[in-house]
């Protein structure tokens, strides 16, 4: 049923087919976070991979910067309805990270953990095959604190709350453990093309 008098402002066909259902294009780069922006010092920064409570590998900023660097270009989609097209990110793919540490994933799920006590759950399969990276650059420049710098997870095929800002590590979990927003009404998977915004969405 249509809304009386609503005309709408349609995107071009080229943009429309890149927008998942319910999304609109923004030229801005909106910021969303549960609290104040943490100021994370690169000199003290560490990135750690844990299996439960057991550390598997850890990098300083300098060590992390020495890992193979990858550029990714594409579109990002926020559950608050905006999508931003043709973004460019630089960082280390999760494949390269695991390879550098000689890690074979010990389980099928993990939590991405942040400096502001935020976390979000992901299937490991969603991070491999070039689908995700630890991003340290946006549009060729060091990632700003507001957008998650020094480093954030980038999983662009899922809603952007999964791309945890101010990331400090990955923790393998024995099962799919709900993260911060996933405990508060948001979907466990969060595929924008299936419009998996909220807990009970199919």
């Amino acid at each position, binding site marked *: 049923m*249509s*809304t009386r008098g*609503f005309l709408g402002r349609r995107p071009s066909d080229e943009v429309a087919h890149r927008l998942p259902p319910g999304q609109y294009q923004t030229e*801005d780069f909106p910021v969303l976070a549960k609290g104040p922006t943490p100021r994370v010092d690169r000199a003290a920064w560490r990135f750690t991979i844990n299996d439960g409570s057991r550390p598997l590998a850890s990098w300083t900023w300098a060590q992390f910067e020495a890992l193979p660097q990858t550029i990714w270009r594409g579109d990002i989609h926020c559950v608050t309805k905006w999508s931003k097209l043709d973004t460019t990110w630089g960082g280390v793919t999760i494949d390269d990270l695991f390879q550098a540490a000689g890690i074979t994933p010990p389980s099928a799920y993990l939590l991405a953990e942040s400096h502001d006590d935020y976390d979000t759950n992901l299937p490991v399969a969603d991070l491999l095959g070039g689908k995700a990276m630890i991003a340290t650059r946006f549009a060729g420049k060091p990632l700003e604190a507001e957008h998650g710098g020094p480093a954030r997870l980038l999983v662009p095929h899922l809603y952007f709350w999964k791309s945890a800002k101010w990331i400090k590590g990955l923790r393998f979990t024995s099962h799919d453990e709900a993260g911060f927003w*996933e405990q508060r009404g948001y979907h466990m998977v969060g595929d924008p093309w299936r419009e998996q915004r909220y807990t*009970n969405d199919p």
Partner: protein
Amino acid sequence: MTVDASVAPARWHQAVIERILPRTPHVISVFLRAPLEPHVAGQHVDVRLTASDGYQAQRSYSIASAPGTEGIELAVERLENGEVSSFFHDVARPGDTIEVRGPIGGYFVWRVEDGGPILLIAGGSGIVPLMAIARDWSIAEPKTSVLLVYSARTWEELVFRDELLNIQAREPRFAFIATITRGPRHRPEDFDRRLDRSLVRQILTHWGHSPRDVYVCGSNTFVEAVTSSLVQEAVPAAIIRTERFGGKD
């Protein structure tokens, strides 16, 4: 850790617009009747509009009304080229039907049992979810202290201003301070300057309470500035909840 099913919204519902009320030159209140589950102060709803050819647009709007009151009040600011806000401002009228989904959000919320003292800081239309908290607090037997610091360009652009003045006149534990950035202040307790770090310090010192929870809502620029000041003034980051809109002022 488990999933809290109570914060999972159901699917889309029809909502009838019962009333539209101008609040300020740029903000209207839209009162809806819709069969939604009861909300918690601070939550929002998703709104969906459908054109005659099936094209749809969705946006999120914070709920301004207190839990337990009849109907749902949204406050809609007119945005430049706003696809959905211009519909509410220029087209919508009572009796129209839209679709809503919600209530949504399990973090930027306050319940009576959360207690206080509560520090609320709003910039512009960021007042909306904080208004729901202020109203909820004032309806419950308010035993705890609240400070609302509300920044707007002018006195006329303070949404819900008269109601906030009324709550303040009625409730000795409710402090309301307006910070006006592009016009004169109207009361001695208000300020005609930006809410910078020194003003944050001055206001907190004068209030004299240590907040249990802090809620900051407004543009990202506003929220960044205010939360940086709060953290520098030794308010623990872990008690500060933020909700931000837009990339710019």
